[in-house]
C-alpha cells in the first residue's frame, strides 16, 4: 500500500515537473507581452458621441451667432 502511494507521489512529481516545463515553453514572452500592452494603446479609445439633439442645437446656435454678428456689422456701418 505504502509502495503504491510512493509510486503515485513519484508520478505526480514527474508530471508536475513536465507540466511546469510545458507551461514555461508555451508562456507568452515578456517582450511580446510588453509589445501587446503598448500596441493596444496606439488605437484610439472609443469616444461616445453626444446625442443627436446636440448637433441640431449646435447648428442652430452657430446660425444664430452668425446672423447676430452680421446684424451688428451692418448696424456699425450705418
Amino acid at each position, binding site marked *: 500500500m505504502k509502495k503504491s502511494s510512493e509510486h503515485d507521489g513519484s*508520478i505526480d512529481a*514527474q*508530471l508536475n515537473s*513536465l*507540466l*511546469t*516545463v*510545458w*507551461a*514555461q*515553453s*508555451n*508562456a*507568452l514572452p515578456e517582450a*511580446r*507581452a510588453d509589445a*501587446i*500592452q503598448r*500596441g*493596444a*494603446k496606439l*488605437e*484610439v*479609445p*472609443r469616444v*461616445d458621441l453626444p446625442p443627436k439633439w446636440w448637433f441640431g442645437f449646435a447648428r442652430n446656435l452657430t446660425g444664430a451667432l452668425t446672423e447676430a454678428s452680421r446684424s451688428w456689422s451692418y448696424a456699425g456701418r450705418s
Partner: protein
Amino acid sequence: MTIPQRCDSSSLFDCVYQRHYRVVYAYIFGQVQEADASADVLQDTFVRVWRHVNDLSAIPQDRQLYWILGIARNQTRDYYRRRVVRNRVEQNYNVSLVQAAGDPHEELQTKETQSAVDAAIRALPPSLRVPLTLSVMGGLNSKEIAGILERPAGTVRYQIAEARKRISRHIGLQDGSEE
C-alpha cells in the same frame, strides 16, 4: 513587476493588463493551443479593452477579469472563424521546446518527452484542457477557475485530475489499465 492592489483611473489599462494578461493568455491558449495565435488573440482582446476603457472603469475591480474574459471568448471564436486550416504543430515545437544542455541523447529524450506532453494536452477535450491550462499556466486555484468557467470547484478539481491522469497514461507515466 509588482502589481498594485488597486488601479487608479489614470493608469487603469496598464494596471489591469499587468494584473490579468497571464490568466487571459492561459485561457486563450487552452483553446487555441498555439503560442503565436494565442498572442494574436490576446492582442485583439486588449485592443478592445483599450477601446472600451471607459466602460472598464465602471466595472467593479473583482468583476473586471470576467469582463475581459468575455471579450477573449468572442475573440477566440472570431479566430476560429478566420483561421485557415493548417498544421503548425512542428513549427511550434521548434520554437518552444526547452533546450537540454549537454548530452545530445538527453536533449533528444527531453524533446521527445515534451512533444509527448504537448500531444497529450492537445488530445484532451476542451472541457479538461482549459481548466488544466488555467491551473498550470495561469497559476489559478480550482475556486478561481470555477468562477471563470462558471462550474463548481469540485467539478474543476475532478477535471484537472482527469486531465492529469490522461496525460500520465498518454506519455507512459501510468499504466493504461489503472482505473
